[in-house]
């Protein structure tokens, strides 16, 4: 796709450097001259937004570390001192805690975009799987970070999640003790969680590089799910077209982010986390951060401990197999009338599971969670494989340019090059 760069630096120094380390050419080829499909919509701007959020989390995280103390007796107080004493501390902490939420908002949109437009299909399977790995690392990082303030939710969230491992037959208890560094969540746990919370975002950054690399090998998918055939007709240059569009979307996204940070900074958090951790008393109603709620609902929907844990991890792992579960030859959901219906039902199912995850696990809530869990797995294991066989897709245009021209009634001008 990107091919060997034809970039030639203008200055003599630039040319000297380029023949020794062609990094300017790499950047030029990846983010300036790189051909992007001309039919991309705003759902394609979330990759850029995600990159921004990763940087924002790393920057705010590093400065928080300068004031934070990872010790069971001091952690809670150090976070309170960040809130009250440290210059702009409240802002940094709210930017970081809400930043995590915004990061997940963006990643969920990004992933649902991928599902709707079939972005995981050949030749983008590896690209998709790298994305699933990033998502897993994000979940781990968010969980580790949430333990650091050492409030009641931090402590009990960490306790419940690490106890998942006790469900493993035979070695479960040994693994859990090893994770804790003791017989319960305690100071050694907090220390190692802090070390890992610092490490994982940099591992995410590494996988992001692979993700973007894979992207630039196979090229971007697009709303019509047709590959670029003629670069001049079907594509526009990354800069200025994608750069400007991504920047505009980012600014809109930042307005929402800023609204949370400045207007309702604790809305997505939980009041119990402003009570210091107490290993002898569990809050009456413990819930994880909102971005884990659908999985928490699946965990609680299954009446057996091991079964619940397997279903929960399975609900994430199954994403990696999506490229092979979807048997349809048509890539974009735009041309798949039946897929569309099941897709939107799937979105509602995920939102419903999220709601149920925040409710107590009793009575009607459990029954509803079981129904939705069935649909969740059914969507991947039954619906997607069968749809490819039984659905009659709509005719797909021959090229991106044809799709765009058809939409604009044949009146679209040639894109500038």
């Amino acid at each position: 796709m990107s091919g060997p760069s034809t970039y030639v630096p203008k200055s003599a120094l630039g040319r000297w450097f380029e023949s020794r380390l062609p990094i300017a050419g790499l950047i030029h080829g990846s983010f300036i001259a790189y051909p992007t499909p001309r039919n991309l919509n705003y759902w394609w701007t979330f990759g850029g937004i995600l990159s921004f959020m990763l940087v924002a989390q790393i920057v705010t995280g590093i400065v928080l570390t300068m004031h934070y103390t990872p010790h069971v007796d001091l952690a809670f107080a150090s976070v309170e001192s960040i809130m009250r004493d440290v210059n702009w501390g409240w802002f940094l902490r709210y930017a970081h805690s809400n930043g995590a939420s915004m990061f997940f908002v963006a990643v969920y949109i990004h992933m649902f975009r991928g599902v709707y437009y079939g972005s995981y299909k050949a030749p983008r399977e590896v690209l998709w799987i790298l994305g699933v790995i990033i998502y897993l690392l994000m979940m781990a990082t968010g969980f580790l970070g949430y333990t650091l303030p050492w409030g009641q939710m931090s402590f009990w969230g960490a306790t419940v999640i690490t106890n998942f491992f006790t469900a493993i037959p035979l070695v479960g208890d040994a693994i859990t003790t090893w994770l804790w560094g003791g017989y319960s969540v305690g100071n050694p746990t907090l220390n190692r969680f802090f070390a890992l919370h610092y490490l994982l975002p940099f591992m995410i950054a590494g996988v992001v590089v692979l993700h973007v690399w894979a992207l630039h090998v196979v090229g971007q998918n697009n709303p019509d799910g047709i590959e670029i055939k003629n670069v001049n007709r079907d594509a526009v240059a990354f800069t200025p077209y994608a750069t400007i569009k991504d920047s505009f979307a980012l600014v809109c996204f930042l307005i929402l982010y800023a609204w949370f940070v400045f207007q309702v900074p604790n809305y997505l958090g939980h009041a119990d986390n402003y009570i210091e951790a107490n290993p002898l008393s569990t809050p009456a109603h413990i819930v994880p951060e909102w971005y884990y709620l659908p999985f928490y609902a699946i965990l609680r929907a299954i009446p057996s401990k091991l079964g619940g844990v397997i279903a929960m991890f399975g609900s994430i792992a199954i994403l990696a197999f999506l490229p092979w579960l979807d048997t349809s030859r048509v890539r974009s959901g735009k041309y798949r009338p039946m897929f569309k219906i099941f897709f939107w039902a799937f979105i509602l199912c995920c939102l419903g599971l999220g709601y149920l995850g925040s409710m107590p696990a009793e009575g009607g809530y459990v029954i509803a969670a079981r129904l939705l869990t069935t649909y969740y797995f059914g969507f991947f294991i039954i619906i997607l494989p069968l749809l490819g066989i039984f659905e009659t897709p709509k005719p797909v245009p021959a090229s991106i340019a044809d799709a765009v021209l058809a939409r604009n009634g044949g009146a679209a001008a040639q894109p500038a090059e």
Partner: protein
Amino acid sequence: MATSSTVEPTRRDFLFIATGAAGAVGVGAVAWPLISQMNPDASTLAMASIEVDISAVPLGSIMTVKWRGKPVFVRHRTPKEIQEATSVPLAELPDPETDKQRVQKPEWLVVVGICTHLGCVPIGQAGSRGDYDGWFCPCHGSQYDTSGRIRRGPAPKNLEVPTYSFLSDTKLKIG
């Protein structure tokens, strides 16, 4: 290089495998300290036992003490509670154990206060002890009886009975 016609392994093959094996053992030997350092350290292991004065626990109430960072419930059971615990048919229990197997003196029940589902601390305040008069776990609704045995809910096992001994009528050693 060994050619496909030689059935006999060559000296090179041997060296190749021996070097690889030595390398694998070396990597394993270095990895072990890196993994093992995460297990409980000497100071954590040293805190392993405590002594508790139980003279002040009134009949019918539960004292919570901290042992190895977790709560331990010391429950002074009433005759009615003992009767409830001993009269259940084993067939009704998800994790069958008689009350006798779980206590040393019938009036004292000592259990680790950690729900065997995912580790929350079950509630034992009078009035919210669940349907079996034992404990109720707020996290996912597990219910325990007056012997700390699981009766209903997602928890698979009975509350764990720690190693303990009576040093005297009023002194208990846990661990």
